[in-house]
């Protein structure tokens, strides 16, 4: 049988048709079937009209009007060749809203074995924009078949692409900028999104603080990839403590009338960072603060408790001592995570620094030092045996010592710093166990000062001071942190608090934590009340021999 069948149809192009044909294009993924449409409405989207409206409308008659204003404006426009594009309704996009009956494809129901699918009326909204460049080289015709089997060809006037209108929340400008900043840092997107959702869920539950703490707990329990700005490699308990401590800290600072702005900003920063995932990479954009700092990748992580306390106290102490002239390269080498905690601590530290008068003077100085000292602190804290580390550092720095006597002269500065430190320490101490707090602070400070200085003659000095007397506590006496010792340093030469602490740290044996040293030195400085002098850009302390 013949497989070919010829049919001939006439093609007509009707003229004077009142209808203008346009093409609607939908996204293939939307799976639109127009036969299923039940109800539809098509209208023009006039939202762009306000752009075309006159900016300033002047009254034509009566009050506020000028004679001949319109003509003048028109003449002006002509002279300068302004071309005004008119608002054309025909060129505006379409708003299409259709309701269709669609079977509700509920996968869950299928799993249960239910076979009945409820048809549901679903309304979809589309926005149809004109597509340009369609009719450049060729024309489109719509061929419809008449009942008598002739074809009618109608030219297509416009082509519209219809997209679904977005219903989900979009980022605001600020949010988008933040996300942009993080784009290289998020390494685990799944985790990131999961946390985001968790956060939203928690907030919806009305969690507020509790939610946040819960969330942070969860976060802290998850692993971090290349460290985090938050730098909280603690367990849940530690985080709790940190949180509770932090809130009380902030309250106190508020009472003291510190610059709440700075504090809030910094506070929000760690919080925000905690919101981000811990998988984020380390952020290195601190305006050159960490330039030249070497990061050591230590695998050991100190005990959680110590970490918490240390991290809490350290920043504040560092603030006060930040005016020391040397940076702690060594310690920074040892602790990569310093940076992470630095940020959060920085915030606290700077906030704290606002408290004390002294620190306020050299706030700018402190900040630079802060990061370094903090990093040093953190390094110290995170070490399992901070004392051992210190010893190790000491020995390392010993090799670098050149001019032992120079250290002595740097006393005044150090004293002042210590003064600041002690203040903060005391404040902190009130909230937590003083020993560990003070100890860690001192520790951190010492490390901060000790590492950076190339001339660490403290070791030599500490030896004779071992026989120091008139120290208030047994511990101080044992380790030579005496008033006499401090006085000696201060009278010899103006010294920064950092350097001073270094000296004491150097001769510190096991049995006293860095925080304790800081504490003691601070007390002594308070007693001695040295004079302050600006040398270079650091605050030095010294005592006049009278």
């Amino acid at each position, binding site marked *: 049988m013949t497989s070919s069948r010829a049919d001939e149809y006439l*093609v007509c192009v009707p003229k004077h048709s009142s209808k203008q044909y346009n093409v609607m294009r939908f996204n293939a993924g939307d799976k639109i079937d*127009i036969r299923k449409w039940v109800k539809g409405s098509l*209208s023009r989207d006039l939202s762009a009209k306000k752009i075309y409206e006159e900016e300033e409308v002047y009254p034509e008659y*009566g009050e506020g009007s000028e004679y001949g204003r319109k003509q003048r404006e028109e003449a002006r426009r002509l002279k300068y060749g302004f071309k005004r594009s008119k608002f054309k309704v025909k060129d505006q996009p379409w708003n299409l809203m*259709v309701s269709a009956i669609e079977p509700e494809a509920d996968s869950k129901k299928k799993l249960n074995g239910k076979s009945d699918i409820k048809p549901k009326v679903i309304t979809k909204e589309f926005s149809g924009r004109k597509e340009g460049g369609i009719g450049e*080289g060729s024309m489109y015709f719509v061929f419809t078949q008449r009942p008598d089997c002739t074809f009618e060809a109608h030219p297509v006037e416009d082509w519209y692409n219809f997209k679904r209108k977005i219903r989900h929340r979009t980022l605001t400008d600020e949010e988008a900028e933040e996300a942009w900043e993080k784009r290289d840092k998020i390494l685990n997107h799944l985790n990131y999104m999961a946390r985001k959702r968790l956060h939203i869920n928690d907030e919806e539950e009305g969690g507020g603080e509790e939610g946040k703490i819960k969330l942070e707990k969860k976060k802290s329990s998850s692993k971090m990839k290349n460290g985090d700005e938050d730098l909280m490699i603690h367990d849940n308990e530690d985080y709790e403590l940190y949180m509770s401590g932090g809130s009380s800290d902030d309250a106190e600072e508020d009472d003291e009338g510190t610059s709440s702005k700075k504090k809030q900003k910094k506070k929000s920063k760690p919080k925000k960072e905690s919101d981000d995932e811990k998988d984020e990479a380390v952020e290195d954009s601190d305006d050159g603060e960490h330039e030249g700092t070497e990061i050591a990748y230590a695998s050991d992580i100190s005990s959680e408790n110590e970490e918490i306390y240390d991290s809490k106290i350290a920043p504040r102490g560092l603030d006060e001592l930040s005016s020391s002239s040397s940076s702690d390269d060594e310690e920074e080498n040892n602790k990569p995570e310093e940076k992470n905690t630095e940020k959060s601590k920085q915030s606290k530290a700077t906030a704290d620094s606002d408290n004390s008068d002294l620190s306020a003077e050299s706030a700018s100085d402190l900040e630079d030092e802060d990061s370094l000292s903090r990093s040093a602190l953190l390094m110290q804290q995170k070490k399992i045996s901070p004392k051992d580390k210190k010893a190790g550092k000491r020995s390392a720095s010993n090799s670098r010592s050149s001019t032992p006597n120079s250290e002595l002269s740097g006393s005044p500065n150090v004293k002042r710093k210590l003064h600041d430190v002690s203040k903060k320490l005391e404040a902190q101490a009130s909230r937590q166990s003083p020993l560990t707090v003070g100890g860690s602070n001192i520790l951190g400070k010492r490390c901060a000062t000790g590492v950076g200085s190339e001339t660490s003659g403290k070791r030599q000095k500490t030896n004779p001071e071992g026989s120091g007397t008139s120290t208030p506590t047994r511990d101080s006496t044992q380790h030579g942190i005496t008033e006499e010792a401090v006085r000696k340093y201060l009278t010899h030469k103006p010294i920064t608090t950092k350097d001073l602490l270094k000296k004491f740290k150097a001769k510190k044996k096991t049995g006293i934590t860095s925080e304790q040293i800081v504490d003691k030195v601070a007390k002594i400085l308070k007693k001695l009340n040295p004079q302050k002098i600006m040398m270079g850009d650091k605050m030095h302390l010294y005592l006049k021999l009278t």
Partner: protein
Amino acid sequence: MSETHDGGDTGDSCLELSGAKHDVWLVKVPKYLANKWLNAPDGCPVGKLRITKNAGRTEVNYSMDKRLELVGEASTKNLATDHKFVLQGAERQSLAVFSTTNAKAGEKRSMEGRVVQKVDCRPVVSHNYMKLKRTQMIEACKPKRITKQLESAVTTVYKPVNVVKEELAYKEQKKSEGKKIRVAKEELEGMLFQAFEKHQYYNIKDLKDITQQPVAFLKDVLKEIGLYNKHPGHRHMWELKPEYRHHKVETKDSDDSS
């Protein structure tokens, strides 16, 4: 068109869906053929479609009507070529056709159908087609702007003169008008008040035109009853003093002084 001047959407937003059940073809046609179709004489079929099914494949051939050959530009006349319609299947789910009816009352929008086949109209390469293409190319190569020689010399070149004819006439006219005659002060004030009823701010030049008074006199009167604005926005503009101001929106009274 159905849009109003203020740029609103006057059409009927209700979309008619009766035509949505129809199936249509969307055919892409080359420009020269489309022109022929659109310029065809009224009521005349433009051609014939021969649809054959060969071994499961559908072939569509289009042949142009003889009468259509006469349509079009001189160069493309009598160059009928056959075309084949290449069926490209539809992205079935995604194309549809709707129409807008340009009625004076309101624009009616309705769905016309679902596109089931996207078709490409391609000419069958033949001798005629080559000739057609050649003529098209020759047309395209011709420059749009041509140089034409003038029949006579240009007379509109202007020689530089001291005083142009029109300017001379203008000066004469001004002279004939003569100096402006001062009217009574009250009368001038009345005129000013009337003018300030209409607009709040006036330029001195405009006031001069309106009142036809010598500038010095006008300025004197203005200094009495008005203020000179120096601030940005309405700069260098005169307005009435606050005590004289009495703006009426609808009616314009001749005297409005307080």
